[in-house]
């Protein structure tokens, strides 16, 4: 079983490494990479130049990879494919390898937007990626590939410019609309004050009744008091229990009434936005 898995992984890596070779390129990807022939060479070069400009201007790579079927390269979903490409070909600008990759799988018409790096994830928030896809999906659905990629690159520039200015495109997610009081809350609202008020009034009522029989006799203990004849504390046994430390739940301060959308980053440092076109 292990041998099969290892063989599968090796095959996938070999296929991924074979991508640029198949296209007759060096073992390094361009900004715009079409392995399906949906773009003419001129268009691809023009888009590549445009993407290179944006990437260098903001220090964040803007990439496109188009394949017939991503399933021929990796196990798992489209997101795995994007991450594998990004890592295998060391995409991204600068030490932080910041960048965004738009992957298209033509057979099933799948796409994935994959951002990486501190600045990449800062610039392309979950909300920002959603807005970005709206700019090219209409083109792709009309098979206007060049127009869609151009829009993608242009709007990546817009989002990166905003992020550079410290104002990434993000949204304010309001809390759910005010809701009605649940029966449980109604019980609390009624019961707690009634119990408190009842306790106070009971205290007042007790003040009104002072003729009560004595049940103690501490005032009549003789001078000798308590004379202990035996006093022993004998150890019997010991029990030890072990429990895992409860995990602390984060509860950082948040603005009232809602919270920032931000970017959802996975353990590999990538953030995604996927779908069909």
């Amino acid at each position, binding site marked *: 079983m292990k041998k099969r898995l290892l063989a599968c992984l090796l095959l996938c890596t070999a296929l991924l490494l074979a991508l640029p070779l198949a296209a007759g390129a060096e073992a390094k990807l361009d900004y715009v990479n079409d392995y399906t022939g949906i773009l003419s060479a001129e268009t691809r070069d023009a888009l590549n130049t445009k993407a290179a400009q944006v990437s260098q201007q903001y220090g964040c790579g803007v990439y496109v990879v188009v394949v017939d079927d991503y399933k021929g390269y990796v196990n798992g979903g489209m997101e795995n494919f994007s991450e594998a490409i990004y890592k295998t070909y060391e995409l991204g600008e600068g030490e932080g390898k910041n960048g965004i990759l738009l992957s298209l799988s033509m057979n099933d018409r799948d796409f994935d937007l994959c951002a990486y790096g501190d600045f990449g994830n800062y610039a392309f928030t979950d909300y920002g990626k959603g807005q970005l896809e709206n700019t090219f999906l209409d083109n792709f659905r009309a098979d206007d590939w060049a127009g869609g990629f151009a829009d993608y690159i242009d709007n990546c520039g817009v989002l990166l410019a905003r992020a550079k200015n410290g104002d990434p495109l993000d949204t304010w997610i309001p809390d759910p609309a005010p809701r009605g009081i649940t029966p449980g809350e109604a019980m609390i609202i009624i019961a707690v*004050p009634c119990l408190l008020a009842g306790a*106070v009034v009971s205290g007042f009522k007790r003040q009104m009744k002072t003729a009560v029989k004595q049940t103690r006799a501490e005032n009549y203990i003789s001078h000798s008091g308590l004379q202990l004849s035996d006093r022993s504390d004998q150890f019997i046994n010991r029990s030890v229990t072990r429990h895992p430390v409860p995990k602390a739940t984060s509860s950082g301060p948040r603005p009232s009434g809602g919270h920032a959308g931000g970017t959802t980053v996975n353990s590999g440092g990538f953030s995604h936005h996927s779908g069909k076109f």
Partner: protein
Amino acid sequence: MASQITNYQCPSCTGPLHYGDKSGMLECDYCGSRFTVQEIEALYREKDEAAAAASAAAQAQQQAEPEADTPENWAKDAGIRVYNCPSCGAELICDETTAATSCPYCNNPSIVPGQLSDMLKPDYVIPFKLNKDDAIKALKDYYRGKKLLPKAFSDKNHIEEIKGVYVPFWLFDGEVDADMSFQGTRVHTVTTGNEVITTTDYYRIHRSGVVDFDKLPADASSKMPDAHMDAIEPYDYSELKPFSNAYLPGFMADKYDVEPESCYDRVDERATNTAVEMMTGTVSGFSSCTPENRRIGVRRGKTSYALLPVWLLATNYNGKNYLFAMNGQTGKLIGDLPVSSGRALAWFAGIALPLMALLTALLY
């Protein structure tokens, strides 16, 4: 035949004497002369003895003679005694336990020495230290700060009766033997890495000992509500004095009509509760302590008979009687008060409604 009643009269002017709570002496209402208890005791010893003998003779005669259909015997059957005031000759109708009273006609303090002599003689008495004015002031103070007291009760209410009474008490000496065992735990919690380690040590705790009690009181008068008499405790026993009739003039007094044996349950319960509390209090340093077994034994010692001073104040409100009792030595006053339903409701609403509004604002 000698009178069964003694009036304590001033040796100077024959005016009535009463015991002065502030002076601690017998004072004449007319000439203002003052006499020590010992002086009056010496003067009236013979008179008291004669009155006691007359009382005993009267009882013996009544027992010897067949029950005649006379007013005296009807009164006896009803638990009433009839005496003649030695000062004005008027008939004094008293309970069969009355030991000291005042003549309703001439207001002379009258003592019935036969009620408090020989076997019935108290061992001790604590003289009154506070007077009627102190009791009235204490009652007014008691009304203050009572949030549920009807306004009409404190504003318009008048005390209908106020009297200083020497109430008979049994004072019990004794000791409680207690043998108790508990299960105790000591819990230590240590956090190491990602584990919380709780160590619980179990102990068997044993305590055995004796608690001595001195003069634990129980009222010996069936006329006095037990709760009232319990609630005005404690008395300062350092002021206990050997009994003398000379402390009684000016106050009411009753002889006991509850036998000591009838008080054992009350007294034992109090002593046992306290002994158990003290014993449990010696168990310390444990995270938890659960009683397992206990053996309690009460050994009774000497029982003394004492008259203790009580001011009784009675009033009526809306057709219901309210009785207050004040410790005639310490001034501690107790008594149940009427509760105004309107005030209780107003307080309840005044607390509950704003809290409901606040909680609604917080939750919604």
